[in-house]
Every structure is written in structure tokens, then in C-alpha cells.
């Protein structure tokens, strides 16, 4: 390994966030004092940037924004708090505490996210510390759930191959822990830990990140074929488990995926990650760390919207990055192994695992666990959590698995599922079960249009067209976001809508069902009427013209309706 490359980060003055990080004394900033100002639920922008590293940021109810301004009241601020759960696994006890916290301090809903974490919304400033302390008391935390660091590590909750899953899950957990920031700021501010003696600069170091942390967020996920539910190609760094004869042989390494882009800015685009090689299981931490340090050193710290790892790779070249990685590792990656994905959705209902335990996958519309007028989802799950001795697993599609149910308990839990009507997903179309929306309005500051509140309503109308064309049982992934930042991984939906303005969306078609190909813009800035009339034409053609089991995303390309996107760099072409 004597090959030396001279690489360099893009020129340009550092962005304001870089300065905030530098001045923050390892993520402390003035947060402690700010949180004690009781004249506003709000906090200043600089501290809010730092809050992200602590797993939270300030939002407000945008429905009330102008009304409250007229009333001379500050916006209806509340903090979003995100709880890390590597691979999305929590115990019954943890579930119950989280759900109670949502009631006591947040707006009552527990949100299962697209990255297998929990979110609560609308927490008032003076309840933040209590909430975080209680989360800490059940051995979970919120540190690094947002911010320019490695986020929650995703992992396939695969209930089919239990022993592989638990092994892969352990790797996800190890990675997640290993890559946590080392600063004690979180413990001091929220958990009343004694302040680190002396000046922070001397006393503390971030061995992996350094005081500037990463240029941008960094996402890692591990997939276990044939399921690509975690959308491994959307991750900055993905691992594909290679299983042979029931044994985990290692992982294919994929790098440089990412969803976010900016409407109208062609220098930004979604990208699918590329396979660069294979490593044995024991090497996974080392590989992840070195890749992160490459992004740390060469990522764009000047322009945040070009700072994700995908742009670093596209700028330096995939081969160059791979060589740099091998340089840093001091050894060469092995050839990538063969793998096969066949879907990126979830499988619903009861499934028996190899070890004899049962797993029940529940469709949770948009991941929002709450009680609805005719659907007591939250109460039902609370009752189950009281007797459930296994665990709860969040899927990457915002659904929930009641996992590791013993044969003895299965009947009891089944009764509760029936009692609370939790199996209602049976009555849904496959399209609805394959749907995903981000939060958007009213709490997300970036949203330009509705998403979570609107997609279910839109699907009601789409289902009529689905039924007219006899496609009720066809799984077609449909995703909606309020902006192009990609929280519901919309660029990988066979059909996707990204918000442009209230009631207006760009419509995308042609992603692959297994999550390996991006979609492309089909119509710009259209409203509901046009969406429905477009789909009416598309579905009726699909019903008639498709060949065999051809997927909708593949059909629209073969039929010449949309061009295939072969790489993120031609997403806008």
C-alpha cells in the first residue's frame, strides 16, 4: 500500500455551522443557559444547531404561526426529540415508558421514523430535561440522533432468519455505540453530570470526529437480503449481509447514497450508493470509521447542500475514494459477493422465525402511534406491551413488529390484536401498505406542502383507480414528502410526490421496487386533480400492458413513459 493520493476538500470559506461547531466547546454552546430562559420556549439559531447533536431541535406549529403572530404571541414552539434505537429494537418496558413520555410531555403521539427511531413532537422547553432523563433511565438516549454525525444505525429487523438477524443487529449496535460523539456535553446539560474539569479543549477530544464533527449528517444501514427494507442504496454507508448456509460471511460495502436535493438546483441530486467491495464481519467497525474519516477530511464544509458524502465521492471519484479507504485501512477490500434483493417493503401479519418464535408485523400508517377515534392503536399496543415478553422492532418503513412472541403468548397477544382491530391492514390495498410519508406540516420547518396529513387522503382516491384496474393486491411503493430533503426516501419510490407549494407536488416515476434505481421527475408542480388523472392513465396502461410480474417502476421505463435514471448525476436530465 505505498500508493499515495493527494486529495483535497473543496475551497471556499467554511459555512456558518462550521463556526458554530468550533465555538461550541464540543457541543455545549450556550445551551444550558438558553434552556433556563423561561420567557420563551424558543432558543436562538446557534443553539438550535447544537441541539441537533443532542437529538432534538426546535419546531413550531406552522398552522398557528401567522395567527399567533397577530396575537402578539411567539410561535407555538415545541421541541422534536428523537430517540436512537439501533436497528429499531426496544423492550416492552422501554416501549411503555416512551409512550407515556409522549403523553406527559409531548403531543401524545409516538412517531416511528423512517430510520427506525422514535420521535416525539411539541415538548416544551422546561420539560426537555425531564424527558431526556427518563429516556436515559430506560437505557436509551437521544445523543447524535440528529446533527453532523453518524445517525441511528439502521438494520433489517428480519424476523425470518432469527439467528442471522441477532448477529447483524449486534454489529449495528456496536457501530452505533462506537461512532457516538465522546463529548460529555450531553451528560452535563441533560443528565446533571459534573462538568469536565479544566478547559474543554484540553480535557476532551473527539477521536473520530474532531471538533468540527462531520461536514453533514452521515447515515449507515445494514441490509439482509432478500429484503432491502432499509433502502441500503440510500445510505451514506451501507452494508449488505452475505449469508451462506445460514452463516454470516461478511458484508458487501456500499457507499455514497443519499436522498436530499434542492428543487431547481442541479448541483444537488439524490444518489444511489455503489458497491465497492466486501469485508469480513469483524472488520465492519474499522471500515466504517475509515470511511467516516475520509468524509470528515474531504467533505465540503463550505456549502452545506453539497456536503453529503455522495457529493464527495462524485467529486473525487469512486475508485479514488476506494483507494483512499484501502490506504487508511492498510489492506485491500475483497471482491464484492453476489446478493439478491427482491423488495424494500415490509411483510405483514404473523410469521414464524427459525427459532420457533413468532413475529407480528403491524402496518402503522405513516408511523404515527396514537389513538384515533375509531382505532385505538396506542391503547392496543400499551395493553400488548404489558404482557409481551419479547421486544418491539421498528421497521424502516415506519411499521412495527411485535417480535419474539413465544407460542404460548401468541394466542393472548392475538386476542389483543383482534380486540383493538390492529389487523386492519388486511383491508388495505397493497399500495397503501407500501406507502410512506414524512411528517411535513405543521411541525416541520422545511415543508412546502402537506405530506403525512395528506397522503392517506390522496390514497383513498387513488384506491378507487386501483380497484377500477384490478390492482388491489399489487405492491407499488408510493412515497410523499413535503420538500425534496428526502425523509421518506421519496427518490426511491416507484411513485413519489415531493412538495413544492401548498397543494402542489412534483411527481416522480420509475424507481426500482427493490430500491436499486432512482425515480425521475414526470410532472412538475401539479395538484390533486392532475395527479389523479395522470395515475388513471398510468394504472390502466399498467393493468393491460405489463408483462408477467413486471413491477410498476420497471413498466413505466419499458413503456417509454419515463427514462431510467442510471445514476444520481443524471437524475435531472
Amino acid at each position, binding site marked *: 500500500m505505498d500508493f499515495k493520493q493527494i486529495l483535497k476538500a473543496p475551497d471556499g470559506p467554511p459555512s456558518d455551522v462550521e463556526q458554530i461547531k468550533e465555538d461550541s466547546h464540543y457541543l455545549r454552546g450556550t445551551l444550558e443557559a438558553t434552556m433556563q430562559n*423561561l*420567557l420563551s420556549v424558543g432558543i436562538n439559531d446557534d443553539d438550535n444547531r447544537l441541539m441537533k447533536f443532542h437529538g432534538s431541535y426546535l419546531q413550531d406549529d406552522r398552522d398557528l404561526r401567522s395567527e399567533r403572530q*397577530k396575537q*402578539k404571541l411567539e410561535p407555538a414552539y415545541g421541541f422534536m426529540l428523537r430517540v436512537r434505537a439501533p436497528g429499531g429494537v426496544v423492550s416492552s418496558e422501554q416501549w411503555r415508558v416512551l409512550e407515556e413520555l409522549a403523553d406527559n410531555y409531548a403531543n401524545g403521539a409516538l412517531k416511528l421514523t423512517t430510520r427506525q427511531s422514535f420521535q416525539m413532537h411539541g415538548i*416544551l422547553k422546561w420539560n426537555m430535561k425531564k424527558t431526556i432523563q427518563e429516556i436515559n433511565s430506560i437505557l436509551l438516549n437521544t445523543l447524535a440522533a440528529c446533527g453532523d454525525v453518524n445517525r441511528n444505525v439502521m438494520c433489517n429487523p428480519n424476523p425470518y432468519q432469527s439467528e442471522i438477524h441477532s448477529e447483524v443487529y449486534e454489529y449495528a449496535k456496536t457501530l452505533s455505540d462506537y461512532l457516538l460523539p465522546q463529548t460529555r456535553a450531553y451528560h452535563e446539560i441533560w443528565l446533571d453530570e459534573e462538568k469536565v474539569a479544566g478547559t474543554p479543549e484540553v480535557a476532551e477530544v473527539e477521536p473520530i470526529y474532531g471538533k468540527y464533527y462531520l461536514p453533514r449528517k452521515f447515515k449507515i444501514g445494514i441490509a439482509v437480503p432478500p429484503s432491502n427494507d432499509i433502502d441500503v442504496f440510500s445510505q451514506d454507508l451501507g452494508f449488505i449481509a452475505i449469508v451462506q448456509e445460514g452463516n454470516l460471511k461478511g458484508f458487501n460495502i456500499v457507499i455514497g447514497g443519499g436522498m436530499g436535493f434542492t428543487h431547481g438546483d442541479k448541483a444537488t441530486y439524490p444518489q444511489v450508493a455503489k458497491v465497492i467491495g466486501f469485508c469480513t464481519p469483524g472488520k465492519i467497525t474499522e471500515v466504517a470509521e475509515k470511511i467516516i474519516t475520509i468524509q470528515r477530511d474531504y467533505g465540503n464544509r463550505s456549502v452545506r447542500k453539497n456536503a453529503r458524502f455522495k457529493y464527495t465521492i462524485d467529486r473525487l471519484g469512486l475508485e479514488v475514494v476506494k483507494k483512499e479507504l484501502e490506504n487508511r485501512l492498510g489492506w485491500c477490500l475483497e471482491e464484492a459477493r453476489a446478493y439478491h434483493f427482491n423488495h424494500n417493503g415490509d411483510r405483514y401479519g404473523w410469521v414464524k422465525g427459525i427459532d420457533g418464535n413468532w413475529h407480528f408485523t403491524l402496518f402503522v400508517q405513516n408511523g404515527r402511534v396514537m389513538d384515533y377515534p375509531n382505532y385505538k392503536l396506542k391503547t392496543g399496543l400499551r395493553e400488548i406491551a404489558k404482557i409481551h415478553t419479547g421486544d418491539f422492532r421498528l421497521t424502516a418503513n415506519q411499521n412495527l413488529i411485535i417480535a419474539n412472541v413465544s407460542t404460548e403468548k401468541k394466542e393472548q397477544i392475538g386476542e389483543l390484536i383482534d380486540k383493538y382491530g390492529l389487523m386492519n391492514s388486511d383491508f388495505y390495498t397493497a399500495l397503501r401498505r407500501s406507502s410512506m410519508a414524512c411528517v411535513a406540516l405543521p411541525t416541520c420547518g422545511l415543508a412546502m406542502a402537506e405530506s403525512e396529513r395528506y397522503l392517506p387522503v390522496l390514497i383513498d382516491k387513488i384506491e378507487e383507480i386501483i380497484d377500477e384496474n384490478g390492482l388491489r393486491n399489487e405492491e407499488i411503493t408510493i412515497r410523499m414528502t413535503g420538500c425534496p430533503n428526502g425523509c421518506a426516501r421519496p427518490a426511491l419510490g416507484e411513485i413519489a410526490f415531493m412538495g413544492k407549494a401548498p397543494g402542489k407536488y412534483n411527481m416522480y416515476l420509475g424507481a426500482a421496487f427493490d430500491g436499486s434505481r432512482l425515480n425521475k421527475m414526470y410532472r412538475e408542480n401539479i395538484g390533486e386533480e392532475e395527479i389523479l388523472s395522470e395515475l388513471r392513465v398510468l394504472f390502466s396502461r399498467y393493468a393491460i400492458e405489463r408483462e408477467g410480474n413486471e413491477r410498476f417502476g420497471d413498466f413505466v421505463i419499458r413503456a417509454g413513459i419515463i427514462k431510467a435514471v442510471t445514476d444520481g448525476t443524471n437524475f435531472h436530465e
Partner: protein
Amino acid sequence: MQLQVLSNPFNQEQADLLSRLLPTLTETQKVWLSGYLAAAIQSESTATQIGSLSPKGAGGVASKDVTILYGSQTGNSQGLAKETAKRLENNGFNITVLSMSEFKPNQLKKIQNLLIVVSTHGEGDPPDNALTFFEYLHSKRAPKLNNLHFSVLALGDSSYEFFCKTGKEFDQRLEEFGGTRLYPRFDCDVDFDELATEWIQGVLSSLKAGGKESIFKAAAALQTVETEYSRKNPFQAEVLENINLNGRGSNKETRHLELSLEGSGLSFEPGDSLGVYPENEPALVELILNELKWDPETTVTVKQGDVRTLKDALLSFYEITILTKPILEKVRPLLSNNELQELLTPGNEEKVKEYIESRDLLDLIRDFGAWGETAQEFVSVLRKIPVRLYSIASSLSSNPDEVHLTIGAVRYEAHGRERNGVCSILAAERLKPGNSLPVFIQHNENFKLPKSPETPIIMVGPGTGIAPFRSFLQEREEIGAEGKSWLFFGDQHFVTDFLYQLDWQNWLKSGVLTKMDVAFSRDGDNKAYVQHRMLEHSRELFEWLEEGAYFYVCGDEKNMAHDVHNILIEIIQKEGGMSRELAEQYLASLQQKKRYQRDVY
């Protein structure tokens, strides 16, 4: 006063202008003008203006002061506004750059050079922080802007139907109000950099060119108002704004009323009150009329020379919501009702008190029957509707020609019927912008800011008691007072009941308000009130008093003011190391020196 042409330095045209102006001036206006010019000459820039008087319309832009307002959703406009500011500052201009939500629209009249950078979002909508200012410019309060020079930089996205709509509308509005464009509006697409740079350059050149010339603002002849409005002759004040200050989900409703005093000649100082003549609730009048045998259109004489229909008299002249013992006494001879006779028997004073509590005219009629041979006889027992006094919540110097009120809506249930406060429910349910309300000024010499703007002030005003302190701070902001100030406020819930929250936050930011402590009684498990916050800061509070601070209390008398008074004694006792007696003396002496003032009700 005439101008002697031969003995003055003006040319003929100027002299003519002055000759026409001077005779129209009142004494006050002359004094003001001489002071204004004397002050103006001291500053170099304005001294040159005096040299060449030219009427407005010459198109020149004299002032070096430029205000830049931005309306920004994603931060682009904000960034460009700051960039513009930097560029102009480097060229010697004095720049104020503010988001539109931070800007006080009433300052608009004072501005000569205004630059607007604003984006359009969604389907042609203004950004959130531009909304208030945008609506102001579309309201009837938007002023004439004949002295204004402006230019607009509009940001947008041409893939939307209403490209740069907000910028266009600002541009158009400012022109309609008489503003002069100092540089044309530029409409920028998502790649705005180049065009924006060009706009900044253009604006700069135009401002520089304008600076060589100068303008003279001919003093507009002020309308002198002959009529004196008073309690006897109330002014019909137009409602400009009527807002509920409590957010959704609140148990309370507190109205913020803005009334126009334009043309009234009325003036007031912070601490004064506004008297309001309310009108009774039409629905309640209707119920009373239903119980009576007379035609609502029957006329009655309410006072000498004032004849009204019965309906109108009940609506706007007589009090119908309160019962008094004298009313009962007057009704007795007009009504042969045994129960009423019984109630009014000597020895039953407690029962009478109990009866009239929370009952009204309608109850009286329903319980004992209607009285009187004629409608005139019926109304003869009634008293005139009393005026309501509200502590004024604005300062005249900060909001000229306006008066603001803070009114808590009173609604309660008693004796099986919903009861409404007369004036508060008028404000809450019936008064709309454009309606008017008979008002007068009630001066209150016992609730005044200290003479010196350097003197520290402590203000305690929970609930609607907050009103005069908004006036205090507006005034102190306007005069640039340097004295410290400390405000205690309390109500039920932080999220919904923090009255005028944005005002206090802005004043804390700008330093007009030094310190604020709040108590929300229904947020936590333990009920916290303002007096608890005082006690928590007892040492500092006492230090302020020792430094000469004035202490003000406004609001509920029965509970709050009483508790605050006692806590204050406790604090003086504790921190001053005094006996209870000495502490009471200490407070009494503060009161004597007018350093402890209360406006309680």
C-alpha cells in the same frame, strides 16, 4: 407674522413659500419649528439642506439614512438584505436592517429611504415574517408616503404561477401611497445572485446621485381641532384592530383594541385611562322587551331634550345588567308584589344583598313582574349606564393618533343563565374594525412614570394589569430612556396566555426592558403567582428599591394587589433587616414620594 423680504437670506420663491406658511402657524408650531431647525443646523448633513430649499418632487434623496426591510422564508432575502446593508454602509450610508416582523409599521412615515428585499412563497404568498407588514400596507391605516424613496428586490421561482408576486405587490403599494422609486424593481429567479448584485449597484448609484441634491419638506399646515372632547362630549373613536391575545386552547379571552384618535385632539400620558361608553347586548335587550307590554318603538325621555325609543334607551342609555338596592326600592311602590315587599322588609338586608348579587333587570322582571303604567315610568327607576375605564396600553409618542386597550372578556354563569360583561363582551363579540366607540381620556396623576428617564422602575402587572406597562415601555423606548426596568407578569398558561409576549421579548432584546419574571399558575403542579417570583428575587428587588426604583402595581385589587403589598413588606423586612413596623413605614414613605404607585381595580 410676516417675512421681511429685504432682511432675509431667502430667494423670492422661498420667501413666498415661507410667507404663505408662517401666518398659518400656531404658537406651538412656531416654537416647534424654531427648535427643529436649530437642532437640524447642528448636524452637518441637514445644514446643507437648509441652503437650497426646493419643494418636494424634485426627486432628490438627501438622507444618508436607509432602512432595509426583508421578508424571508428560507433566508435568501435575509442574506441579500444584509449584503445590501454592508455594501451601502461601506459607501457611507447609515443602515437599519430589519426583518419585516421586527419593524414597527408606525415608523414608516419617518423613513425617507426604504429598500425592500422579499421573497414569494407557495402560491404567491408573502413569507411568514412579512405577513404583518404586508397586511398593514393593505389596511386602512397605511399612511401617505410622499417623502418616501424606495426600491424593491423581489425573489421568486419562475416555475410557480405567481412569480415574485409579493415583491410586485410591495412595489405597487408603496407607489400608490405616494412613494418615489429610487431604482426599478428587480424580479429574481432561483439563481438570483447576478441580478441581485446588479440591483444593489443600481440602488447605490441612485442613492449617491440623489445625495447631491436635497429636498425640503414643506411643513404641512396642521389641522387645528376646535372641538374639545371630554367625558361629557365623548369622541367617536374608530376601531382599527380588535385581536384576541389568548392563543388557541386558552380558558381566557383578552381583547387587544386599537382605536383611532385621529382628529380628536385628545392626548394622554402613560398611566392614563380611557373612558368608554359601552352599549348593552342587543340579545339581552330583546329578552327584556319580550317581558314588557310596550312597543319597543315607544319613546321615552331619558334626560332633558333627549328622547329615544324604548329599545334604544335600553340599548345605549340605561344600565340593565346590575341591580342595586335603590332600584328595588324604586320598583316597590310601582308594583304590588308581596314577595318583593317581603324582601324589602327591614331586617332582610342580607337577603337583599344576596338577591341582587349576579342578578340583572331581566331577573327582576321575571321574578316579580314588570312595573309601571308607562314605559317612561318603567325606565324611571333605572340609572345611566356607567362608563368603563381601562388603563391605556399604548404610548401616544410611539403610536400617534392611536390608543390601545387590553380588555379581559367576562363571562360567567349565575342563577341558571349565562352572564356577560357589558363592555368586554361588546369588545369580544360585536365590535369590528370600522365600528366606533364613544371614548374620552381619564388622566391619572397617580400612575406616572418617574420624571427622570434614568430612574429604575419595577412593574407588577398580571393578567390585564399588564396594560399600562406596555404604555410605559413604549414611551421609554421612544424617548430612549436609560433607566433599568423590571416586569413581573403572570397568568394561567405560558403557551396561550402570555399577553403581548412578542412585545416583551423584543424589548428585552433591545434593552428597553432589563428583566422580566413570569408566573403561570396552571402550568405546573404548584400554583405560582407574581408575588412568588418577587420573593424568589427578594434581594435584588430590595437593591433596586434602595437604588431609587419606582414600584408599580396594576390589576386585580382584591387578591393580587393585596398579596403583592404584603410580600413587598416581607421583602423589605427580610432584606433590609427591619421590623415589620419599620418595613411598613419604609413602604409608606415610598408611597408618599410617589415611588409606590398602584392602578388596581
